[in-house]
C-alpha cells in the first residue's frame, strides 16, 4: 500500500467505506441468489469477491452497479443508494462485466472514445488522459486494431481502460482473470495495485481461490451466503499447523491419498506432484497421518496453509477417498502399453494454426493433462485425439486404432465427457443413462445390468425421474461421468471437467478419476486450473498452438525454481516456461 492509501485507510468510521452492503437478498424465480448479505468495502483496498460459480458473485456485482434491484436490504456506493440515486452510481463506479463488454467491430481507440464521451468527456480535449491510460495499459501500439482481434489479456486491459474513463471512485471487475493467460494476469494485478495505491476501491471477483490470496480483503461467498469477511491471512491463520505434506510418495500417491482421506482425523487432501497434501480436522493430532507416513516410508512435513484449505474447512471438509465406481470396474486389458499417441498433429483453420505439430505418447493407466490458457490450442488438440476434428496434418492413434481410418471403431473404445457436462435437459436422469447405453450399442441383459450398476455406484437412485438441471452440481457431474463410462472405455477424455465446479465437488470428481486410473483406465484431461494439473502423472503445456513442455508436474515446477521462489506453483512454472520459450524464439529470429 502506498502512503496515500494508508492515510485513507486510517480514517475512522464510515468515511473510508466505499460500498456498504446491508442485508441484501435477491431471488430469481426458484433460485435464491443472495441471502441477507452484509459487508463493507473500503477505499484504497483490493477486495476479492470470492466463491465458486453460482455463489452469487455476479448478482452482487450487478446490484452494486445499479443494474439489478435487490429484493431485500440496501446497497450504498460512494454514499449513493444504488436504487434511489441510480444515475449517480453510474458516474461514481466503473464496471467491467464478466463477458467482454466492448464492441469487437470497433477499434481500440473508437471504443475508448465512445466510453469517454458516454462519461461526458471530450476525447480531443483530454488527450493527456488518453495517453496516460494507453501507457498504463500498454495498449499504445494497438489503438487502430479492432477490439475483436485482441488477445484475451489485451481485451481485459482495454475493458479496464474503458471502465477507468472519468476516474470512478469504485472499480468493479467481474472475473477479470478468466480467459487471460497467466502472464497478462500478472499485468492486471500490477495495474489494480497502482489504482488502490491512489485510494480507489477495487473489487475483483473470482472463482480461483489462489487469486483470493492476493487480495487485501476478501468476501467469501457460497450459495448466496457470506462465509467470511476479512483479510485472507486471517482465515488461513486459523488453519496454521493443520496442513502437512507426505513428501515424494511417488507411484503409490493415489493409494496413499485414498487411505489418508479415509482417516477420521483428515478433513481434506489433494495430490501435489509426487506428494500428498493433507489438512487435518480441527483439534486432531498427527498420530494417524504419521503412522500412514511411516507405513508408506515417507516423510511428513508441515506446510503453510492455503486459502483453499480454509475454504474447504469452512464448508466442513472434503469428501472421502474411496471411489465406489472404481471398485465395480474390472481392470483394463490393453494390447499395448501405449493408449493414446499422436505425431506432428496439426490443425489449421484458414490462415490460423490452432495446433502446430504436436507429438506425444500416453501410457496405459496414466492421467495425462493438457494445460494452457484459453486459445492455446488445447481444445483443438483434444478434439482431434477423440475423433471430433480431422487433423490438417499428422496422425493420431487411440488404443492402436488410426483415428483417420477407423474413427468409428476408435470412438467406441473411448469415453468422452464434454465441457459443461452436455446432458439432455429434457430427459430424466434414467432416460439420459438409457440414451447413452443405447448410443454405445449396449443391448438386453448387459444394458439393464450396466444401467443399474451406474445408478448404484453413483448413488443416483433418488434422482431417477428428476431432470439433470435440477440435480445438485455434484450429482450432475456424477451423471455425466456415468454416461461417458457406460461402455467401460479403456480411455476416458475429459474436457474441462471441473470448470465452474466448487472445490468440494472437484475433489469428489478427482476421487473417482484416481480410482479409475488405478484400475488401468487412461485419462486424458484438459484444464485451465493450474493447480489441478498436480493430479496428473504428466502434463503437456500448450502455448500459442505449440507444445512448449511435457513432463511430470514436479519436474515442470523445478524448472521455475529461483532463489526468491524456492517452492513455485504450477502457475509460476507456466509463466516461466512461456517467457523462456518466447525468449528462445526472439533469440532465434
Amino acid at each position, binding site marked *: 500500500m502506498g502512503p496515500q492509501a494508508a492515510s485513507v485507510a486510517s480514517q475512522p468510521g464510515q468515511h473510508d467505506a466505499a460500498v456498504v452492503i446491508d442485508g441484501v437478498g435477491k431471488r430469481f424465480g426458484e433460485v435464491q441468489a443472495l441471502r441477507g448479505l452484509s459487508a463493507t468495502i473500503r477505499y484504497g483496498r483490493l477486495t476479492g469477491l470470492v466463491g465458486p460459480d453460482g455463489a452469487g458473485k455476479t448478482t452482487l456485482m450487478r446490484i452494486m452497479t445499479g443494474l439489478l434491484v435487490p429484493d431485500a436490504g440496501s446497497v450504498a456506493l460512494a454514499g449513493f443508494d444504488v436504487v434511489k440515486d441510480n444515475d449517480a452510481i453510474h*458516474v461514481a463506479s466503473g*464496471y467491467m462485466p464478466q463477458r467482454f463488454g466492448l464492441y469487437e467491430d470497433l477499434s481500440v481507440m473508437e471504443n475508448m472514445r465512445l466510453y469517454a464521451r458516454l462519461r461526458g468527456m471530450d476525447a480531443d480535449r483530454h488527450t493527456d488522459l488518453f495517453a496516460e491510460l494507453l501507457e498504463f495499459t500498454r495498449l499504445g501500439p494497438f489503438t487502430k486494431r479492432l477490439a475483436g482481434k485482441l488477445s484475451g489479456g489485451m481485451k481485459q486491459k482495454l475493458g479496464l481502460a474503458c471502465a477507468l474513463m472519468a476516474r470512478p471512485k469504485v472499480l468493479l471487475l467481474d472475473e477479470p482473470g478468466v480467459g487471460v493467460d497467466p502472464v497478462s494476469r500478472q499485468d492486471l494485478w500490477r495495474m489494480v495495485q497502482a489504482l488502490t495505491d491512489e485510494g480507489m476501491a477495487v473489487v475483483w471477483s473470482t472463482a480461483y481461490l489462489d487469486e483470493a490470496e492476493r487480495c487485501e480483503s476478501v468476501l467469501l461467498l457460497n450459495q448466496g451466503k457470506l462465509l467470511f469477511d476479512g483479510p485472507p491471512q486471517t482465515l488461513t491463520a486459523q488453519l496454521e499447523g493443520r496442513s502437512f505434506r507426505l513428501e515424494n510418495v511417488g507411484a503409490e500417491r493415489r493409494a496413499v491419498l485414498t487411505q489418508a482421506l479415509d482417516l477420521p482425523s483428515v478433513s481434506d487432501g489433494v495430490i501435489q506432484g509426487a506428494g500428498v497434501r493433507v489438512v487435518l480436522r480441527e483439534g486432531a493430532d498427527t498420530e494417524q497421518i504419521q503412522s500412514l507416513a511411516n507405513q508408506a516410508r515417507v516423510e511428513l512435513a508441515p506446510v503453510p496453509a492455503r486459502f483453499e484449505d480454509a475454504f474447504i474447512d469452512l464448508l466442513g471438509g472434503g469428501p472421502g477417498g474411496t471411489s465406489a465406481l472404481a471398485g465395480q470396474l474390472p481392470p483394463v486389458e490393453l494390447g499395448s502399453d501405449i493408449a493414446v499417441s499422436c505425431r506432428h498433429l496439426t490443425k489449421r483453420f484458414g490462415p490460423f494454426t490452432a495446433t502446430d505439430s504436436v507429438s506425444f505418447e500416453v501410457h496405459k493407466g496414466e492421467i495425462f493433462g493438457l494445460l494452457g490458457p484459453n486459445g492455446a490450442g488445447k481444445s483443438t488438440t483434444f478434439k482431434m485425439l477423440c475423433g471430433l476434428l480431422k487433423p490438417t496434418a499428422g496422425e493420431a492413434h487411440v488404443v492402436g486404432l488410426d483415428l483417420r481410418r477407423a474413427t468409428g471403431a476408435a470412438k467406441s473404445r473411448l469415453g468422452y465427457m464434454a465441457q459443461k457436462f452436455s446432458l439432455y435437459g429434457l430427459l430424466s436422469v434414467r432416460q439420459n443413462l438409457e440414451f447413452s447405453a443405447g448410443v454405445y450399442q449396449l443391448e438386453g441383459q448387459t444394458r439393464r445390468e450396466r444401467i443399474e450398476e451406474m445408478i448404484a455406484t453413483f448413488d443416483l437412485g433418488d434422482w431417477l425421474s428428476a431432470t439433470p438441471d435440477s440435480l445438485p452440481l455434484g450429482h450432475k457431474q456424477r451423471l455425466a461421468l456415468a454416461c461417458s463410462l457406460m461402455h467401460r472405455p479403456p480411455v476416458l477424455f475429459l474436457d474441462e471437467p471441473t470448470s465452474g465446479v466448487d472445490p468440494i465437488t472437484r475433489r469428489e470428481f478427482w476421487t473417482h478419476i484416481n480410482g479409475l486410473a488405478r484400475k488401468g483406465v487412461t485419462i486424458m484431461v484438459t484444464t485451465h486450473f493450474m493447480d489441478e494439473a498436480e493430479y496428473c502423472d504428466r502434463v503437456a503445456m500448450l502455448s500459442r498452438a505449440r507444445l512448449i513442455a511435457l513432463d511430470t508436474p514436479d519436474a515442470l515446477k523445478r524448472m521455475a525454481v529461483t532463489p526468491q521462489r524456492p517452492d513455485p506453483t504450477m502457475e509460476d512454472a507456466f509463466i516461466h516456461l512461456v517467457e523462456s520459450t518466447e525468449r528462445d524464439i526472439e533469440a532465434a529470429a
Partner: protein
Amino acid sequence: MSAAARKHADAVLPAGSRRFDRRRLMALVAKESHQALRDPSTLLIAFVLPVVLLLLFAYAVSLDARDVRVGVVLESPGASAQSLAAAFSGTRFLDVHFAHDRREVADQLVSGALRGYVVIPQDFEQRLARHGSEPLVQIITDGSYPNTANYVENYARGVVQSWRAGRAIDAPAQAVVLEPRYWFNPELESRRALIPGAIAIVMTIIGTMLTALVVAREWERGTMEAVLSTPASVAEILIGKLLPYFVLGMLSTLGAAALAVFVFGVPLHGSLAALLLLSAVFMVPALGQGLLISSLARNQFLAAQIALFTGFLPAFMLSGFLYEIDAMPAPIRAVTHLIPARYFVESLKTVFLAGDFWAVFVPNLLAMAAIGAVFFGLAQRATRKNLE
C-alpha cells in the same frame, strides 16, 4: 493516474449526472454508424436486398396472365369460322395453337401443355345464321388453375363478343357492348401495384428485422450490460440505436423509389414529400416493433424468428400487398387493422398510382403513429427493467 486526470473527473461529474445529454447521444449514434458501415450484412440488407426484391416483383412474380397457351379447334371449314379463329390468333394475351380435332387438344390439356381450348363446332355457320340463344362456341378450361381458367373463359368470351361486334357493323341488332376502363393502372399491370407495396416490405425488413437483430446482438454479446453501467440513460441508448437505422431506412426507401420510377417505369403521381413523410411515419411502428422484439428476446436467433413471424410475414400476407384485404374473411380482415404495413401499403399505392390524397393519408398516418406509440411504450417498459 495523475492530478490532471482527477481534475477532469471533477469537472465531469455534474454533466454526467444529467438525464439526457446530446453529446452522449451523438457518441452512441457515431458508434452505431461505424458498426453499421463496417458490417457487410447491414449494407446487404439495406441496399442489395431491396434491389433483389424489386427485381423479383417486377419480373419474376407477375399476377397477370399473359401468353396463356390455349387451343382453338376449328371443326367448321366456313369463312366466318376462319375469321373468328383469326381473331383469336390476333390477341397478345393468348398463345393460340390450332387443331382440327378436339382429341388432340384434350390430351394436351390433361398434360398441362394447354390451359384451355375453344371449339368452333361444325355447325358454326348455321348457329350464327339462326341468331338464336344457342351458344356459338364451346370453351373448356383447366379448373386446377382457377384464376387462369377464369381468365381464359372471360377472355375467350371477350374475343367472340368483339368479333361479333365487328361483324355487327353490317349486321343489325347487337346488344350493349361493354368497354371496361381501369383507373390508376390502365393496363392492369400487376407490377405497378406490386412495386410500391414492395417498398413497404423492404422498410419492414430494415425497421423491424435489422433493428431487432442489432439490439439483440448487444444483449447477446454483453455490450448492453457495459453501456448500461455508464451514465448513459435508457432513452439515449435506444434513440442512439434507432437513429442510424431510421436514416438507413429512409435512404433505402429513396433508392427503392428511384428504382421503381426510373427503371421499372412505375409512375409517381403524388409528391416526393408525401412519400417521404409516409415512409418516415411508417418507420415509427417498424422500429418500435424491432425494439420490442429485441428487448423481449435478447438473443439474435429468437429475435430473427419473432421478427419473421410478427413483422415480415404479416407485412407480406396481410397488408394488401399481395392479397386484397377485401377478399379476406372478416376475422382476418379485422386482424389486418393491427398491421402497420397495411396502412403503409395503401398509402404507397395511392401516392404512386393516384396522387396526393390527404383524405387517404391522414387516417393512415394516424394509425401508423398510434401503433408505433404502443410499440415504443411497451419496449420502453421492457428495457427499463434493465438486467432483470
